[in-house]
């Protein structure tokens, strides 16, 4: 068991946690949160892969790619949040119709 493996496994668990949140929660802000958690889980997996060899300095390519990914995730989160606020203004609901209905049971 190495540090890299610990965080890679943590990343895999986070993918699961985020997925669970995305499936079970209807409130869109929570789903946006869940997306971000899945994303950072995937990045940890990639980062864990980059530092597996136990070298002093981990592979810089995954690091650079992850920084790009973090910025892309922020861009999408910003659009999602703005869209959500607009949706609430238009409809008064922060859920999508047909989704919370199936969850009410």
């Amino acid at each position: 068991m190495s540090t890299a493996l610990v965080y890679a496994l943590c990343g895999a668990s986070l993918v699961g946690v985020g997925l669970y949140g995305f499936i079970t929660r209807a409130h869109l802000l929570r789903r946006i949160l869940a997306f971000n958690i899945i994303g950072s889980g995937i990045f940890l997996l990639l980062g864990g892969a980059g530092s597996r060899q136990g070298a002093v300095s981990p592979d810089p390519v995954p690091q650079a790619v992850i920084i790009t990914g973090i910025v892309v995730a922020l861009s999408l989160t910003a659009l999602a949040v703005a869209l959500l606020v607009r949706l609430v203004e238009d409809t008064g609901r922060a859920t999508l119709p047909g989704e919370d209905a199936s969850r009410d049971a």
Partner: protein
Amino acid sequence: MTASGLAALPLLELTVVLPLAGLLLALPLGHHGARATLALAPIILLVTALLCIEIMWSGAPIERVAGGWDVPLGIALRADGISGAFLLTTALVACAVAVFQAQGGQDGGATRRSTFWPLFLATWGALNAVFVSGDLFNLYVALELLTLAAVAMVAYGSTEAAMRYLLFALSGSLVFLLGVALIYAGSGTFDIGLLGSAGAGDTAMTVAAAFMTAGLLAKAALFPFHAWLPPAHGNAPTPASALLSALVVKAPFFILVRIWFDIGPETSGVLMQLLGYLGVAAILYGSLLAMRQERLKLVIAYSTVAQLGYLFLVFPLAGAAQDLPWTAGTWSGAIFHALSHALAKAALFLAAGIVIEAVGHDRLQGLAGLARDLPMTVFAFGIAAVSIMGLPPSGAFIGKYLMLTGALAGGHVFLAIVMIGGGLLAAAYLFRPLRLMLLAGETQPAKAIARRRQVVPLLLALAAVGLGIAASLPYALLQIGRSLTATEGIE
């Protein structure tokens, strides 16, 4: 200009650079963005056409590495025949949409907002970036650029549809990214070419490819991930509907073709069969729902769900049997179908947009007799419908013919029956609005539409048919850099 003269120009890079430069120009220009786009669009079309000529001329894929750093350290840009074909189709559709919209399209103020043209050019640039990218992570970034622009354009029409689209697209990209991460963890590269030549064949790579595939299916709206498509494409403003239905859903399909035919992870064929059966379900389900819609744009949107199904038949037909003599033809047939569908579907949506502008709605029952006042538009709708149905001499006919030949030669009788049945269903759901518009009726357009705008969908529809008439040139283009082992198709 000679071949070497063409090669001296960075045509490949320019196909990506020009739309992106255009969007950076259009963003500060505000509502003058329309003029900038109109000036730029023909230049991009020209560059794309020259690139296709260069590919044909050299007879080999064109490859560049960004920054001069060789893979796996750098990022490769690669344009083979299929890239060229998709780039050119995109340029044709985008030019048509730009001309159509810049001449005074009115869609709930979409183009009054100065963000429309930057988003339009971002879509174009992102599509081109997907078609020439040789790097899996770079594809992820390009896909997200595409998502951002496409979702925002849908939001002009409906916030709710845009939100649903964003959720599907985001889950799709994340699952794709998960696959990409596993690929890098296992192989230490993002480069498609290297992955292909390494013959990555273990279970891990297959699982990674399965993740990438699942993510792309959500983005491509293949049944059962289609729920977002009809509301998004049916409620977006006309130019956005045309771009989305014609091109944006083809980008994930394109990447799937790259993954399964260029990287070619070892597979039992089960996954390929599964994709094929999902395609069958999409054809049947999409067609049946298209028949039951009461709005013209929803009929066209559900038709996209059905037609996308055809594309996925390529996986069982050409993927599971890589070295049979007819696979080249089957593979090319599917690509033909994708290109022809892009042209025809853009024509249908633009024609529907003209109908909406003229009568103020797109409820089928209120369209009776429209052919009297909008003959050119209804004619364009009819020609495009012929192409969607796959009747000769359209490009889709060539596509379906090639796929059908492959299916019968390979013993896939069931798939062949579905393909023929799907054509009949398409005829059924497209004849319904067409018959209504041709009927004697009392619908009076409230607004006259300029002929120079009505001609745009007609030209697109004719291009879809023309693809079938002059099929040999695009067929030859598609063969360049095709990765299948089979060298001869069925002519």
